[in-house]
């Protein structure tokens, strides 16, 4: 019998291999992950909900199917468990978006990506924590709990997908799904030393992803290796008639590209350094690791040039107009009528429907969500629309053009993922603007709809992980998987093992069966 600690530290691809070799069952994997969750949660608090019984049932169903030999058409990751960000709707499992306003809501339907996981026989371990409605960069805006960074539990895991990132970093799950509107998959990936991918906009169906900002949101993989991300991306991606913004074209060969990259040969690949991302506001340790990683790419034969994207400096401004505008409209439905919280107006106020809605939304939403709704309401209101929303949409065009020009010169663009490593709880909570600056490197990809991913690039001087970001052209997600896997392999050799070897994981000590 394999020890559980060994099982949970396998990559998803290795778990799949073990299943295929008959060395382990899906149930054993789920049991090991549940044990890891039980052990880790007191200090990490990555999960809002652990769906123990469903996960075991799904594992048993898969194992039975495998025993009967009925595995045709199943993807490589079949039987491997996964955690799902609580921004994604799961039938029969409470889904809250980490908001009080949706407390206890049990959806009557599955998101398309969840349906795909179920078809793939991938057991769902539970729902992970996030900033309320995915709005934040530290997961401190969750209405329920604070998720801790497994590298240093006095620090944040990033956000909004801090739960998914911490769960994967702390070996509570080999894989997770996240959602990325301005960096919510990639920035937590950087801060927790994990891999996070934001696919091309429209590459993964948004049906069942609770909307934050519809024109920016994308569901994507969270994992510990580039290959795992590619395999998961292939499971969840592809066209979906239920999402009008879904691209009616097949995905590229992502896992093939990752495997090719593992050979560490990047001859003929042109890599562009984005001149406008970095410098002021970026931690020296972050920049140092970034430069070393770029050298590693060069050493593998890549041609590295500096590329200018002159309008990127406007992206944060455009983002903080478009995103809250869409938020203000997408979050209107939480009004106390059909589901979720209802709060009646205080005594002395007329007990009307309008006042009920206002009281419900006042109590049900947290500060950051309210701030964004108010800002977005303003940006869309008569007389300001052209100057604000209209201008921001024009900046979006300019950023798309910047990317297009850059991709005429290079195959992929690279930058640090986040200006800093993981910060302490409370450090940026009182200053929204500083918090917003966390996303300065990740936002351009959302505005332009291009794919981007963050992979670990070693540790900064403070001993905390640093993220390295790749961007690729729209609908060419496979193009970034190759250099990402190559860099991952090169760093693994340089550092004699994966980055997490330097992490203290006391919660894994007591796991062995």
């Amino acid at each position: 019998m394999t020890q559980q600690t060994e099982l949970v530290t396998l990559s998803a691809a290795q778990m799949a291999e073990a299943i295929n070799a008959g060395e382990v069952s899906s149930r054993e994997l789920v049991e090991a992950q549940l044990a890891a969750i039980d052990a880790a949660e007191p200090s990490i608090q990555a999960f809002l909900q652990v769906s123990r019984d469903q996960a075991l049932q799904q594992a048993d169903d898969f194992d039975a199917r495998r025993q009967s030999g009925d595995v045709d058409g199943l993807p490589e990751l079949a039987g491997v468990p996964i955690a799902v960000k609580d921004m994604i709707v799961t039938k029969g499992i409470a889904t809250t978006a980490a908001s009080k306003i949706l407390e206890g809501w049990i959806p009557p339907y599955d998101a398309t990506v969840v349906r795909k996981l179920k078809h793939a026989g991938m057991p769902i371990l539970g729902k992970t924590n996030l900033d309320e409605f995915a709005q934040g960069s530290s997961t401190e805006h969750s209405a329920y709990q604070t998720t801790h960074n497994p590298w240093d539990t006095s620090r944040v895991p990033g956000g909004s997908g801090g739960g998914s990132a911490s769960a994967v970093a702390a070996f509570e799950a080999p894989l997770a799904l996240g959602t990325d509107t301005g960096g919510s998959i990639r920035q937590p990936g950087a801060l927790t030393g994990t891999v996070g991918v934001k696919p091309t906009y429209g590459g993964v169906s948004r049906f069942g992803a609770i909307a934050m900002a519809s024109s920016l949101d994308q569901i994507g993989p969270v994992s510990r290796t580039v290959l795992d991300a590619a395999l998961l991306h292939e499971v969840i991606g592809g066209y979906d008639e239920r999402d009008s913004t879904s691209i009616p074209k097949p995905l590229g060969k992502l896992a093939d590209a990752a495997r090719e990259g593992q050979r560490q040969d990047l001859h003929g690949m042109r890599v562009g350094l984005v001149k406008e991302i970095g410098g002021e506001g970026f931690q020296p340790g972050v920049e140092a690791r970034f430069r070393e990683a770029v050298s590693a790419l060069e050493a593998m034969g890549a041609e590295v040039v500096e590329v200018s994207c002159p309008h990127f400096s406007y992206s944060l401004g455009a983002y903080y107009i478009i995103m809250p505008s869409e938020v203000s409209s997408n979050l209107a439905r939480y009004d106390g009528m059909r589901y979720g919280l209802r709060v009646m107006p205080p005594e002395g106020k007329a007990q009307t429907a309008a006042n009920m809605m206002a009281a419900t939304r006042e109590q049900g939403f947290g500060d950051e969500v309210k701030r964004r709704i108010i800002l977005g309401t303003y940006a869309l209101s008569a007389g300001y629309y052209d100057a604000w929303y209209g201008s921001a949409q024009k900046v979006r065009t300019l950023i798309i053009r910047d990317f297009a020009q850059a991709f005429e010169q290079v195959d992929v663009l690279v930058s640090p993922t986040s200006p800093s490593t993981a910060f302490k709880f409370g450090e940026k909570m009182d200053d929204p603007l500083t918090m917003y600056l966390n996303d300065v490197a990740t936002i351009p990809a959302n505005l332009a709809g291009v794919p981007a991913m963050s992979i670990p690039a070693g540790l900064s001087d403070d001993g905390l992980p640093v993220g390295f970001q790749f961007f690729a052209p729209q609908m060419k997600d496979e193009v970034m998987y190759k250099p990402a896997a190559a860099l991952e392999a090169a760093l693994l050799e340089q550092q004699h093992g994966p980055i997490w070897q330097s992490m203290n994981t006391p919660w894994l000590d007591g796991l062995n069966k």
Partner: protein
Amino acid sequence: MADKLMKYADAVSKFDPVFGLEVHVELSTNTKLFCPAHIEFGGEPNSQLTPVSLGLPGSLPVVNKTAIDYAVKLGLALHCEIAEWSQFARKNYFYPDMPRDYQISQYDKPLNGNGYLDVELDDGEIFRVQIERAHVEDDAGKNTHVGGADGRIEGADHSLCDYNRAGVPLVEIVTKPVEGAGERAPEIAGAYVRAIRDIVKALNISHARMEQGNMRADVNVSLRRNEGDPLGTRSETKNVNTFKGIEKTMAYEIRRQAAILDAGGEILQETRHWDESSQSTAGGRVKSDADDYRYFPDPDLVMVHVTSDHIEELAKQMPEMPRERRARLKSEWGFSDLEMRDAVNADALDLIEATVQAGAKASGARKWWMGELSREANARDLTLAELPITPEDVAQVEALIAKGSLNDKLAKQTVSGVLAGEGTPEEVVSKHGYQVVSDDGALLAAIDEAFAANPDIVEKLKAGNMKPMGAIIGSVMKATHGQADAKAVRSIVSEKIASL
């Protein structure tokens, strides 16, 4: 407080009314505009919903192709320019009947723009109404107000919401300001909405039942001193859902506004409601910046593309439009203006046409549908089409009359039998043994009897006074239980008298 009203004739002589109409037409698609929930009138509340039409978190809209096709057809019928690329936008406002608290509508890129509709008035005059746009949007749910008087919103304790209607596709047809209507403004407005009703029925894209809310209109009215002056402040009367109501709303608003302006007052820009029971409009909400709908392109929906080829294909499927059809039928049937208008107003054109197609003469078909059957429908509070008799039945009755097997009286009895559910006309005839008595022997016997019973009348007839002939015929008809052919009786009696 009752409004001060000016006499209508005075109001329209002192002021020039300008109006605009926003007509909402519910499309009769099988499923909703943005989700595959089946649409059915009636049905259990909240049983026609998917996560999309209930506005559940994570749900996304997907456009119904048939709804777009229907809307294009309506645009073509209204002579609109059809946009190859149109866009859905969100209209943001909170209301308990709105599952997402925004409506998905079209804003600066509507499907249909710049059209017109020629409206035929009762006296045959044609008035052209210019159309600004006809865009596609989704409907809201329905609130029932509980605890107040007769289900009205005022004084209600709480409301119950059924979202079945939420997501039903609507086309909103918006006119440009209609100028130059003068005193005929209400009549033109009514005729315009009727014309739209006829068009959507001809296109078969809406059930077009006003009473079920398939069509409703917002009526905007303003007055100005003289034609050519800038437009005055308007009132907007919402959701008027009868033709008469539209005409009355407009006449009422003209009278009310005239009284205010004449007294030196100002018109509030407000939304009002037509109240059928008091036959007046009631003030509602004053327009304010609370009506800031914060329109923006719906990021969940990309541009809708209708190719010019597809528009052409739809254009080829267009049926004959109601006004053209009327002109054709009127001449084919030889109806007078009045006969035609009555038939149109009674919604009898389709029925008469089907009766004619089943072999009846147009005059005969008209006589039944506009006479006996209209009275019957009135008495039963049904539409003509809802009567339990088909155009084929009516044509069969006409055929029996033409053959001489039924006279008028028997024909009416036969129709009554059909209406009573006794079967087809032939079945009714055979069941009751209705038969015109043309057997001369039986008739002659009855006539002889009548002569014998009324010697004084026979004397008068012999003397050339034909007036009392009716009495003889009457007693013959009575003796034959109405089955005698009155014409035959009359000619036999005349012959007999002549030979006496």
